[in-house]
């Protein structure tokens, strides 16, 4: 890949080809439970924003920078009808209109001239989603773990100090499981799997068939999410939707939606919040492999590829076909947006179904070689 192409695929800021494409999707931006009566500073796709919940209970998102003299609205006060800047008291409604300028003359025309950038939000499954793209706003697809009611959910997020594309590619790279995650999946350690790719409306269904009848199925949701079932040694099997969010060119936040399907309620929702980290730092362990704790393996491997991986220096093999497919999807999507069309997987109408079932499962869980039933959603 040429360096220019790498730039085109990886950069996410406003006005970049990749950034314009990524702005056609809804992104999780924070936890519902943590947006209360205080403004919350957030960063998404290279834009500095502030979240707050207005009196009606709806979450609003505005540009973080007050248009007056650039103070941050994160220090503002949430009032009945909007957010007031701490510096000179300008007040902005959820839709970005300026509704008060206490130091200016009462009839100032400036109030109508000022308009703060505001974006659409949507809440589901304990997460706040934002849409930063142009109108008309598409739908947030009803992916199962975001919409089905019959599960207990645990929500948390972690940060990876590298470009989003490295994290997204990891989902299209099933073969890393047998090496990077070998300590947690000793049954498949260094065992090559036969991979079957099946294109879906939202990405790819990936089936990994290992020797001894071991099977793992995951779903890639374009542009950067993975629906999977985790069953590493020492952990009970859990369903996951990993939503990888480009904060800016050099920082990714992964929102983990962990679900336990249960027939009977009441259903729990636990919000654990965000855990920060330092780039390439972890507490080493002695596992006979890489010495990286299970929950840090992906982060460390992908951070080590560089802040923005230099794809002009790669050697791709046949086992990287998933990566190649994904990059093609990405290139086509950027081109589609440049031609005024929707990129891959954007939907504007829901079907009849209640939610979109993304089957994901594994038939190996607790270190035994005996294949139990596939645990499936």
């Amino acid at each position, binding site marked *: 890949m040429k360096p220019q192409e790498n730039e085109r695929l990886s950069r996410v800021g406003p006005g970049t080809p990749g950034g314009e494409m990524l702005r056609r999707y809804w992104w999780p931006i924070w936890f519902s439970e943590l947006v209360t009566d*205080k403004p919350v500073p957030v960063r998404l796709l290279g834009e500095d924003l502030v979240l707050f919940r207005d009196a009606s209970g709806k979450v609003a998102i505005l540009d973080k*920078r007050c*248009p*007056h*003299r*650039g*103070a*941050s609205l*994160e*220090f*503002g*006060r949430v009032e009945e009808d909007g957010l*007031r*800047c*701490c*510096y*000179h*008291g300008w007040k902005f409604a959820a839709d970005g209109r300026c509704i008060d*300028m*206490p*130091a*200016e*003359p*009462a009839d*100032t025309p*400036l109030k109508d*001239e*000022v308009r703060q950038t505001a974006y659409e939000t949507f809440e589901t499954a304990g997460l706040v989603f934002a849409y930063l793209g142009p109108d008309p706003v598409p739908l947030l697809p009803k992916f199962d773990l975001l919409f089905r009611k019959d599960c207990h959910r645990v929500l948390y997020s972690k940060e990876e100090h590298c470009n989003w594309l490295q994290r997204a590619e990891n989902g299209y790279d099933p073969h890393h499981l047998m090496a990077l995650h070998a300590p947690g999946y000793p049954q498949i350690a260094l065992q090559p799997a036969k991979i079957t790719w099946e294109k879906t409306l939202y990405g790819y269904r990936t089936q990994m068939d290992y020797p001894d009848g071991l099977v793992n199925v995951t779903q890639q949701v374009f542009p950067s999410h993975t629906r999977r079932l985790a069953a590493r040694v020492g952990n009970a099997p859990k369903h996951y939707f990993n939503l990888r969010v480009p904060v800016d060119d050099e920082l990714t936040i992964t929102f983990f939606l962990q679900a336990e399907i249960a027939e009977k309620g009441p259903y729990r929702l636990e919000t654990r919040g965000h855990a920060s980290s330092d780039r390439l730092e972890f507490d080493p362990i002695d596992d006979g492999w890489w010495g990286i704790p299970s929950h840090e393996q992906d982060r460390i491997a992908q951070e080590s590829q560089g802040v923005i991986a230099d794809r002009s220096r790669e050697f791709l093999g046949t086992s990287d076909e998933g990566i190649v497919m994904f990059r093609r999807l990405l290139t086509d999507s950027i081109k589609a947006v440049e031609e005024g069309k929707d990129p891959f997987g954007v939907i504007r109408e829901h079907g009849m179904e209640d939610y979109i079932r993304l089957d994901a499962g594994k038939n190996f869980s607790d270190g035994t070689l005996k294949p139990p039933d596939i645990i499936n959603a």
Partner: protein
Amino acid sequence: MSPEENERLTRVGPGTPGGNMMRRYWWPIGFTELVTDKPFPVRILGEDLVLFREPGGTLGLIDKHCPHRGASLEFGRIEEGGLRCCYHGWKFSADGRCCDMPAESPGSPLMAEARLSAYKTQEVAGLIFAYLGPDPAPQLPRYDNLYRTDCIRRIGASFEYCNWMQRAENAVDQMHSIALHAAVYPQFALKRPDVDWQQTDYGVRAAFQIPDGAAKVSHFIFPSHSRYFGARIGDEASHNCNLRVPVDDETTLTFFIRLREAHGKGDQVITAGYRDVVRGEYDRTADGWWDLGSRDQDRACQESQGLIADRSRETLGTSDRGVIMFRRMLGDAIDSVERGEDPPGIVREPRDDMMTFDAHKVRDGEVIEA
């Protein structure tokens, strides 16, 4: 404002238009009480310097980096007649001349060549001031907070991790009291004031009045200082002079001189020293407004404008007349220096009288003064 103009007004390093202008003023750089027998590193206007007091009391202010191989003189030893570098023992006198090179052969011609920049200093009111500009050095203006007697003078300094101009603009921007300081000045909270900014020979006098009678008068001393009467809720009333010093393009150090009456008990200086802070971390308190602690309100807000605020993206209104007045003065001052003239507020003739300021606040119709 164009991005180029923003650069011109904000940058303070040697050789920049703004830096050349700022070098025409005396700046506080340290506390008398804290500069004793150890060298003290100082960064000001983007220059790294070291301040030291010789055993006889003479102050030296010279380049921080030894001209030999760049070691910092902050690790040096103060001796009779100068400061000795820790690395190879070169010794420098307060005027920047090298007076010893123990590893070189006696009579080395190198000694005359190795010369550090040395700057003038003077001490007043417990503070050490420096002048980094060209000769002749002007007078240090006799501000009342520096020269008044029979008072308790509390001095200290706090860092702000943003460009000096944001801090200076804040001093001339009276309007922000109605919002940012609403929790500590409830009499002004979100009330539309009438402000009269008058340009003076030292800067700007601002008279602020809100319809129900609350009022205040405060002063902006060019290029970046404020002189005001403080009467925040929870604080004893005091006369304040905040001297804002550009450490470099992205750091400001505010020296405060707070005066309270000594009621005939004579002078007293309390050196509070430095308050170090972390950009982005502020005292928080539940006050129903911005939840920022009183002393961090200005810093939080001005740091949040960016390391160097981008003034090409602003929306200024009529309430920003004071800020606009200051920016015009600043542009004119830089032009003056480029023409070889003095910028505003430079005092050349020695004087005996003090420069006083009528700073006060009015609350419930009553004038409050210290």
